[in-house]
């Protein structure tokens, strides 16, 4: 599978360095290695979800309890989670750290992924959610750390887009 193990390892290291101890996730191709790493790590609690919006609740509970967490999802999962993000994450000023695989960008071969890629950044902008792209190994850990710092200082959700150039090797 051409999902990058080294990039996934770097992203996972960034999450650990940010103090993340609970990860909620719904499997998708680009996230398989990350989810396995979380599952194999005795220091991490992995919560496998039925739908991404639940992850907002999990992260809210864990944040209120003082434990940093992250959400792993595909951009279509982000779209499915929006009411939770707005009426829990934003309403209650929760520093959600959302890692969103940006499917449907240039190079996408799966026809069913092609609509989500075009709207994801616009929706993030409409929601006033600060976001950055993870598209090169050069800045992965640093950008995760900076995203976490802003989420905490602003007490608001932030997003990082996992881009094809980083995650996919073909």
């Amino acid at each position, binding site marked *: 599978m051409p999902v990058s193990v080294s990039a996934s390892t770097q992203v996972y290291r960034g999450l650990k360095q940010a103090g993340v*101890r*609970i990860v909620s996730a719904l499997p998708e191709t680009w996230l398989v290695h990350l989810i396995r790493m979380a599952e194999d790590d005795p220091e991490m*609690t992995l*919560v*496998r*979800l*039925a*739908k991404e*919006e*639940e*992850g*907002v*609740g*999990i*992260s*809210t*509970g*864990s*944040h*209120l*309890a*003082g*434990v940093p*967490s992250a959400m792993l999802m595909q951009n279509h999962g982000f779209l499915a989670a929006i*009411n*939770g993000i707005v*009426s*829990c994450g934003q*309403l*209650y*000023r929760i520093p959600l750290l959302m890692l969103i695989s940006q499917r449907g960008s240039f190079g996408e071969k799966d026809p069913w992924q092609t609509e989500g890629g075009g709207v994801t950044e616009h929706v993030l902008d409409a929601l006033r959610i600060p976001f950055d792209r993870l598209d090169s190994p050069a800045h992965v850990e640093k950008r995760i750390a900076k995203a976490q710092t802003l989420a905490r200082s602003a007490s608001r959700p932030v997003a990082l887009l996992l881009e094809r150039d980083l995650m996919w090797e073909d």
Partner: protein
Amino acid sequence: MRRVAAIQAIYPELERSVVVTIMGAVAAELQSIGHRPNFFYLQHAMGLASSVGLGLALARPELPVVVLDGDGSLLMNLGGLTTLARYRPGNLVHVVFDNESLLSVGGFPTATSTGSDLAAIAKGAGVPRTATVGTLEEFRGAFVAAQGAGELTTLVAKVEAVGPAGYVTDLTLLENRFQFARHLKERLRKE
């Protein structure tokens, strides 16, 4: 059974627990009995109260967590029951007040009014302990037993479709949220 009486019946246990409620009548009724810094009212995001409770229970396994859910809210996040059951935290009691209606928005009947059985759905999802109760005595007994069981329980309490005159209280959402987080932080320091 009236929901406010049911909440009153378990209030001494709630005072010792970490409590997450859904929006509307449940939040207003619990506050009318007495707000505590260990009570968090999720005043929107219908369906997510049980997920917030799961996050709390997994993050702090030493804390007794109680979720006060409702039929309308739970019906919006039935998949969440499978996630609860998958991780089945023994420190979580999931109460569902089932009045068979969306009372806060005009009383429209929910699917539990036409036969959907939330305790059966929870059981089917894999929640290890489930029950449906219809009287105050049964409710209090089942709730106390659930808190002592050390095993995830979904307890459905059939209640009348009546609620308070209004839902807005003088406790602001963010005041509640930051007070709750601070309470949990201080509780961690003391323990």
